[in-house]
């Protein structure tokens, strides 16, 4: 990527990005962009190439061809810068179950190379924001999924990333916890953090400003939730995003 990117507006730019594993094409030359402060939904069936794309954007694996930039950093040559600029939370939450929330937070402060003089302030910030102060010394594995999710999200925000990648963040989390989670995500976006999220739950995808739907590594639809619904189900005025998703994937 060169320096002509308008960093002021686009947080992520993806151009003809492709990833092959042997004969298998996981991601087949996709292009899209994500604006700063946007909640961007990246949807697709199990095995459609979503996680592979996220791994490339986070600088964890290199693309076979094509290019992409994340907050202006090239995903092949500037992976260290990208890791400092992004937060990542997956469905598995990546927490140490045998550590307490406090210890998990301290571990991630070290991983993200946050200066030690700022630790105390960041730790209390995360515990207060996620309302986990009372649970700070319990074992993480004893916490219910909704609280583990909060802790994982808090850890992914410790180094104040500009972009947050959320890979199926609410799988198996109860309805009230999901409500609280999405209220907070909208607040983060309003503060200017770009949110890149995958989910299998279309009521949640309704929170996204824009959505890209991929199937077998290719983009099959993109636009606002309303645009996607109207495009996929023009004959059905009461269609929802779930109807649109099923129609778009099945007609492939």
């Amino acid at each position, binding site marked *: 990527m060169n320096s002509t990117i308008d960093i002021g507006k686009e947080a992520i730019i993806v151009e003809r990005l492709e990833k092959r594993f042997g004969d298998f094409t996981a991601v087949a030359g996709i292009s899209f962009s994500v604006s700063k402060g946007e909640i961007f939904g990246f949807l*697709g*069936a*199990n*095995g*459609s190439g979503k996680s592979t794309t996220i791994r490339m954007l986070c600088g964890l694996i290199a693309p076979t061809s094509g290019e992409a930039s994340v907050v202006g950093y090239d995903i092949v040559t500037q992976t260290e810068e990208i890791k400092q600029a992004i937060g990542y939370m997956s*469905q598995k939450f990546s927490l140490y179950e045998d550590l307490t929330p406090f210890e998990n937070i301290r571990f991630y402060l070290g991983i993200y190379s946050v200066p030690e003089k700022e630790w105390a302030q960041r730790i209390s*910030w995360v515990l*207060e*924001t*996620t*309302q986990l102060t009372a649970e700070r010394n319990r074992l993480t594995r004893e916490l*219910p*999924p*909704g609280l583990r999710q*909060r802790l994982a999200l808090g850890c992914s925000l410790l180094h*104040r990333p500009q972009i947050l990648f959320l890979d*199926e963040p609410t*799988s*198996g*989390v*109860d*309805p*009230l*916890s*999901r*409500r*609280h*989670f999405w*209220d*907070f995500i909208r*607040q*983060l976006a309003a*503060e200017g953090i770009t949110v890149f999220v995958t989910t*299998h*739950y*279309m*009521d949640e995808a309704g929170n996204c400003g824009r959505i890209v739907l991929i199937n077998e590594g290719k983009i099959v639809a993109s636009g606002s939730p309303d645009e996607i619904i109207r495009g996929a189900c023009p004959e059905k005025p009461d269609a929802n995003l*779930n109807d649109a*998703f*099923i129609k778009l*994937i*099945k007609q492939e």
Partner: protein
Amino acid sequence: MPACAKQIGTEPYLFNRALSLFSATHVSYRFAGTEAVHDVSLELESGDIFGLVGSDGAGKSTLLRMAATMLKPAAGKITIDGLDTVSDRGKIKSLIGYMPQRFGLYQDLTVEENIDFFMDIFGIYGAERKARKALYLGFSNLLPFTDRPAGKLSGGMKQKLGLACVLVHEPRLLILDEPTNGVDPVSRQEFWEILGRMREKGMTILVSTAYLDEGERCDRIGLMHRGKLLQTATPAEIRCGFPNLEEAIIAKIMEVDRNLAQRAFNVEKLPQ
């Protein structure tokens, strides 16, 4: 729209008709001093899909484990087709199919070997074995993948294979613990279509879910919170007065648990 007569409260659904396939009477269970399930009474009509919904730690999985004879109730009793889950455990095994949250497929075995394993357990051989394999792998759209190791299946396919494995002995009662977590919309729809077909064949299905669009597909729903069954009713009854089922469930949980309601993220602490 009918008037919203039902209010929150312990309200065991008393089934008046002749057949009650599943019956839980004043069932409780304790884990390390806390009451995971508290005085739950529930009757399931034969041929119904009954959905258990509620917050994390509400006791849904514990109740399902007791129904599946894996745990003994600390108090109360559960019967399935009149048989007691503790004293008649051996006889009940063939009446139920149970798919826990982390279902133990053999990752190194193929789709076909996994389903063969379950048919061996239940002694299904010959023409019947062939017919059921074709039927349940067919339902699950897994026939093109019979030679693929289970470990190489996508999340949605794994769950459908798990379902096929617990269906091969054609249980009277199917017990599923959050079977569609992490499953995409197309596979979820296929999964629920299979449940619909089994229901038509007369199977009774007891399923927990975190997703209220699935709750809508149940004949009746039980809302659990902190070990208690707060309400059992049809989705329409629970939804009554709310824009949708999810809003209704969230409102009902917040009504009985102010602490949880206030447990939003603290956005005032966001960094500037």
